[in-house]
């Protein structure tokens, strides 16, 4: 990590918080958010909540918790938008997240607007959720045994 500790503790803490916030803001931008006000506010909330969760001043742990909080908030907003019931299976939500993040024309800001655009986004996401394989339709491929002159034959 690149956070300095040789300055006055308060100054150092302020600088460190700025660096952490910047990293969380960068993460939110990676999640497809573009509105700077929204990003700043979400990053601040995540950091605040992370601070409440951990007792000791460990920056690494704080950042990790803040990032987890960002993921949780994003998934929560996405699940709400998509109308997904709470589930232990992470895959349907991951599929929706992938569709949103890998399709260049959609902004993640919409998820936090809670208006008609959020519903429209969900409608447009549903048909493009990743479906990597079609339903299976089995055929059995039996091994063809081979008998040889001069050599041992294959297993039957």
């Amino acid at each position: 990590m690149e956070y300095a500790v040789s300055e006055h503790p308060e100054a150092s803490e302020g600088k460190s918080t700025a660096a952490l916030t910047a990293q969380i803001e960068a993460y939110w931008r990676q999640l497809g958010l573009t509105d700077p006000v929204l990003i700043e506010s979400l990053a601040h909330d995540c950091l605040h909540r992370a601070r409440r969760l951990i007792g000791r001043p460990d920056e690494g742990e704080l950042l990790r918790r803040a990032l987890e909080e960002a993921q949780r908030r994003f998934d929560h907003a996405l699940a709400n938008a998509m109308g997904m019931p709470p589930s232990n299976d992470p895959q349907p939500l991951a599929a929706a997240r992938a569709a949103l993040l890998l399709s260049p024309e959609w902004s993640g800001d919409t998820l936090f607007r809670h208006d008609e655009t959020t519903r429209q986004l969900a409608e447009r996401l549903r048909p493009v959720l990743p479906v990597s394989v079609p339903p299976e339709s089995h055929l059995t491929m039996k091994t063809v045994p081979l008998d040889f002159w001069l050599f041992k034959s294959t297993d039957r």
Partner: protein
Amino acid sequence: MSVKAKSLGSAVSRRRWIFVLLVSLTTILALFMITSAFLQNGLTPTELVLLLLYTLLILWVSTSFWTATLGFWVLLFGGDRISIGRLPPDPETLERAPGKTALVMPIYNEDPIRVTAGLRSIWQSLVETGQSDHFEMFILSDTRDPQGWMQEEANWYRMCVDFNAHGRIFYRNRERNIARKSGNLEEFCHRWGGRYEYMIVLDADSIMAGETLVKMVDLMDRHPKVALIQSPPLPANQHSLFSRILQFASNFYGDIFIWGINFWQLSGSGYWGHNAILRIKPFVEHCGLPKLPGKEPFGGEIFSHDTVEAAFLRQAGFEVWIAPELKGSYEELPPTLIDYAKRDRRWCQGNLQHLRLVFAKGFPGLSRLYFLMGIMSYVSSPLWLMFLVLTGFEAYVKSQTMPVYFFGDNLFPVWPESYVVEMTTVLFVTLAMLFLPKFWSLILGILHWRRLKLYGGLFRAALSVLLESIFSMLTAPVLMIYQSKFVFAILMRRSVGWPPQNRDEHRLGFWEAVQAHGEHTLIGLVAGWISYRYVPGFFIWLVPVLTGLVLSIPLSMLSSSAWVGRLTRKMGLFLTPEESQTPRVLELLEENLALLEAREAERPPEDISRNVRDPGMCALHLALLPTRPVKKRHRHQLKALIYQVVEEGPEKLSGPDRRSLISDPESLSRVHTLSWSTPPQC
């Protein structure tokens, strides 16, 4: 039996007899001449071995020569009337709808950009035909590299987005690589085979035009007895001098060989493993490959599965055709002589494994002949080498023998008989058989003037043929030494594994060239000195072989250069019709390569955690992972790996360990968060 089947059956046997007769007569004639020279003073053991070697070699050379010559003959008269593209369709099939077809591309640790660019081009070309409705595409990945795996997934999904092909293009990464490529395809047939009537098998470097794909399905629809149609792939998109020369040779001489193969093989043709369409039901019923008894290299899984699968299909009574009239089927070549040799190493093991299959019960004679031809394509190298060494030895022995003019009660001198004419004839007949196919192609070019223009016109095409002949003459001894080593290593039971192919262009460095060709240079110098010192007469004949060996280092370096390759293109040398008038599907390939490279340039610099760090790619990977419970012990192992990442960084983890981490949803999420908890890797 229908009239069509009867006439086809009689044509098959008539043509095969013609072919066998021509090859046998040529061999017998050449043997007669060489034997009459050897029998001058009785047959020595060395001469006996030489005769045996020459028999095998001349059989091999004349097989290839007559295939090309028959192809030339057929093309002189506008092509063969008996080919799958010209046979009348089965009347009962005229009304039927096109069969549902899967385009399948098995891949293994390939360059994701090139693979995706190829697939995108094929799909776009197919969509442009307006007949893509009955096609679906499958990327069957066996990729082990974790970065490559995630990149392939992202490329697949973006392809679905870009072409609105959700639910039409699929991706699956196999958890375990069982039985390499054949196992990959077998798994596909097992899981999804029931959805499709046909599958078109592509290689990672395959490019096929949409019209070609549609035509292949149409041919299968019209001929229900056909289980496999092989399209003849032409090399394309080559840049290095080495691969451009090979590309020109395949393009310029390829037609006569393909039509020649069709002439005598007809419905009993072979399968080259890709750019071919297969009827899934017979494939599934008859092509389940067994494991050969014993260990690799001769036992175990069958390496060169395609030849065996075609043999199984023919054995089951189905027709297997090559379709010379199908154009728009392309592949790529290794960019350097060394990469070419490396590919040969794998193919050599696969083909030598077929030695056992020659003795398998139940296969028709033709299948055994194909197995032998595959074996001979590599064994011919050590045979040529032995032939050269023994000829040198024999020449030395002869040079030490003093002629005796007076013996017994003879009053007059007995002059030794000269067989220079016979031996020179044998030599020139052999050389003619090697070089005449090139001449046939040039004649055809002159007769088809418009096509010759696409090769740069008569002068440039002729010059390219001349230069290509010199180049192949110089590289042949190097490949002979390489292949002889491979055959020897495999006979010593050393397996090659399954290394991925290098398809990227790269300039060969001096030390790399010295390491690869140092021994060739040394062999050339030593053999040259010995022959010059002891058998000067033989040395002169050996000069072309020695030149190739002595110059192997600069030749290999020069030919690996893409700059020189592009320069020759500018000069109009080694041009191919695809370079003169780029087909639409190859244009698309260029466009897609540029697009994907531009997208790649927009991403953060490549490092070990780049893909895991990307929330979109991470989410996609998570969505595609199969769900299964993780055993407690494995969970502990995964946790230990995560601690290792925290303490030592991800770069300290082995490839399989990184794959284990990203194969588990929980660990993947943890590693993703960790990658953001530290500054990005540089």
